[in-house]
């Protein structure tokens, strides 16, 4: 798939996932340590936010690993959906943590407990902002060069992680200026972000379990795209259904064919379509082609 100009770009593209994991682990350790040492609730909450990010990535990797397993007798359709179950379980845990962060942060403000973080906490947040930005730049560049819109989209999405670190910077500086409620307030903001993130993850997983069509593939767009791919063949695609099995896209393509063709010809058309369509997909795809005779001639004789 890597139709890139330079070999280096291909390596870069392959490394995005690893960089993301290593970067996240580094940020968690850094923020966790500085948060505890510097006594900043906000920064610790931010470290937990990074943990949630890392967990999301891990869930994705689990999805790839599990769905890569062979189908067997007991699970003839493979393990594709296991990923979503794992995601939901992890999210349940994160909900509890986020709720605790919110509760404790609010109580700290209400009770007026003094949380006066040390300035090192600011450095933790600033480093985290920088690392996040670098990771974003790399993913964006690699995604653009490798012509992978999904990676570009993901890069933009993960850029919003930076907001929590920015909130922490404000919280710590505010506390240093004498507004002692600012640090717990930043923690509450981060807690809300974790909540939102969890909610999105849960929603996505739940909908995927219900075989919702993936966001990037609306039915009409797919129909158009596939039809242009097979213009030179004298057939028409009637319908496309798609669902996600973990990392794999599972297509079911319904094709209208003249009812006079032989079975052999039909199989040839199937193969052709499968090759063309699957070859154009960015993600790993499984294609099932079903043939339907033209409707006006297909009326089954009574």
């Amino acid at each position, binding site marked *: 798939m890597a139709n890139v100009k330079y070999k280096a770009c291909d390596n870069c593209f392959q490394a995005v996932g690893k960089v993301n994991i290593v970067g996240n682990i580094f940020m*968690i350790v850094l923020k*966790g340590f500085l*948060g*505890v040492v510097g*006594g*900043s*609730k906000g920064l*610790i*909450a931010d*470290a*937990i936010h990074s*943990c*949630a990010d*890392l*967990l999301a990535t*891990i*869930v994705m*990797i*689990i999805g790839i*690993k*599990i769905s890569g397993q062979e189908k067997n007798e007991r699970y003839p359709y493979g393990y594709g959906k296991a990923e979503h179950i*794992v995601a939901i379980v*992890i999210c349940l*845990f*994160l909900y509890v*943590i986020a709720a*605790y*962060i919110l509760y*404790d942060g609010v109580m*700290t403000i209400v*009770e*007026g*407990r*003094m*949380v*006066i*973080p*040390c300035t090192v906490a600011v450095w933790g947040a600033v480093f985290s902002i920088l690392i996040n930005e670098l990771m974003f730049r790399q993913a964006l560049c690699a995604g653009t060069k490798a012509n992978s819109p999904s990676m570009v989209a993901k890069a933009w999405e993960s850029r919003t992680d930076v907001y929590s670190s920015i909130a922490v910077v404000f919280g710590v500086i505010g506390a240093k*200026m*004498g*507004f*002692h409620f600012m640090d*717990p307030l930043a*923690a509450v903001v981060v807690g809300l972000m974790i909540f939102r993130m969890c909610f999105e993850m849960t929603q996505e997983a739940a909908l995927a379990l219900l075989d919702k069509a993936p966001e990037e593939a609306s039915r009409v767009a797919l129909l158009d795209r596939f039809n242009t791919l097979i213009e030179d063949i004298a057939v028409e695609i009637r319908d496309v259904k798609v669902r996600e099995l973990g990392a794999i896209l599972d297509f079911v393509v319904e094709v209208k064919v003249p009812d006079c063709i032989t079975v052999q010809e039909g199989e040839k058309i199937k193969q052709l379509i499968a090759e063309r369509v699957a070859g154009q997909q960015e993600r790993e795809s499984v294609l099932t082609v079903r043939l339907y005779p033209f409707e006006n001639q297909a009326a089954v004789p009574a």
Partner: protein
Amino acid sequence: MSLKKYENLEVLLAPVIVLAFTGLLAVMYGWVGTMNSVGAETREVPEPAETRIVAGTAPALPPGDGLNIDTGIGGNMMQLRDVNGNIIPGGIGGNQGNIQLNQFAPMGIGLGQMQLTGEAPIPSGIGNDQMQLAAGMTSAYLGLEVADISGVMARQMGLPNNTGVMVHDVIPGSPAAKAGFAAGDIILKCDLRPVGSIDQMAKIISMMQPGEVVKFAVINHDNKRRSLHVKLSDGPTGIRQAAVKKAARSWLGLDVQNIDLVMKEQLGLADRNGVIVGYVFPDSPAGAAGIGVGDVLRRINGVHITDTGQFAKVLAGGNGAQPIELALIHQGRNSVIRVTPGRPPAEPGATPVIPKAEMLIEGSWIGMDVSELNPTEAKESGLPRGTRGIIVNDVESPPATMVGFMTGDCITAINSVPTPTIKQFVQATKGQSGAVVDILRGNRHMYVTVPPPGFTQQGTPMRQNTTGLNQVAMVKPAPEVVAVLVSGPDLNSPTGSEQWQSNLLLVNLRNNSYAITQVGQGEQLVDALHNNRVNTLICAGLSQQTAQMLTAHQIEVYTGVVGPALETVHLYKAGQLVALRLGG
């Protein structure tokens, strides 16, 4: 099949580890707010001290009198002592210039330790004395009683932090009263310069001479900005009486102390919020309400108490006649009581305890000599009838000097274990690391905390040899040598005053070496300094005569500096000390 199982295990291990770590972080998150223990103090900004009068009258130290401010390290109680050794509890009504002391004012080591953290922009505690001395150089009289504005108050009033000082009271007939000041006014600017604390204002006023006109920018109680012009005058003699009268407001009749880590551990407290009651006066409002020694006061009128300074501030902020609602832990139970503050009775003045020369030294503990109290002594010392305990005969060296023991203290219990005899005392102190000691001093009970070796009372490890200084037998005479009067023969001893201490610390700032020598008083001290070509002296107290002699020898004097000797040298290097100026 088994292979597959392992594969799954590996896949599941990653999220489990991350989840566990997340849980750990969440626990830490919860701790950060409540945990007030190790190291937390260094992050907290110390609240500046108490209400006091900004204005000086005559020089604070009358020549020849040898009056000496002894900041009575520890215990948050400040006492004034004259040369006869009379202890004047509460420090009110002494012949001490016009320093108004609040009974709960956090003075002494508490603030000395805050200084250790180096976060206080102005050396508080000491700073106070210094300001007083600096202010003492002028006789300009303003007639305002001002207080710092706490963060909470500032927020309520919509002021930025560290802006302005609040007028607590205006002394009738004073220049300030004539200019139209009223209680509750907030002073934003003094002599065209913004003021954010009492100290700043004291500094400005201390530069003024009687007859000068000072312009103030003030927000009055209608929230309107006004500017007031005060013509400073010479201080009237009645000023001290006014101050005493004011201090009498909102008297509960109890002594409170900060709770440190050792106290929390030894007294089995849940946390270190609030202040602990050290002594309840007989026939006081607090006593009548059922408050006892060892109770922990948590909230006052719904405001959380963080330390004694803040407690005193909140108390002083209240209307004297209104009942105060106190939430406290009484004998391990939470309860809420209402107390109506009263007026303090005339202080009888405690009988001084003078250790006798023939007294037998029966034991020693943490650098002090102790002996069993015999009943006749108890009577002479003015201790309550039937008191049994261990009397402190001599406080010689750290840590006893650091934690605030004084000669004449009667130790009645260690970690709540009574020590009526020396045998039980030895038993109680054996293998002791970290103790809360119940003592009777001048007829009053109070707690003294003895930290474990190598730690401060707040539980922070003491810096061991991170001073960057090397001890040498003798410092070569050089102009960059700084001299400090110290009460003990080491760098961490508190600074001493001329009358009581005879150790001289000489620090060569250029090659970071130091030496400690013995030194006498008066001319001997001056000679010793002169011979070493020292041109800077830091000390806790100095007689007027010696100060004059030193100034005549071009030696810069920093007096009223209280705290570990090394820290005062650091403060001096950082230019945060204010030199004594004579004459003018």
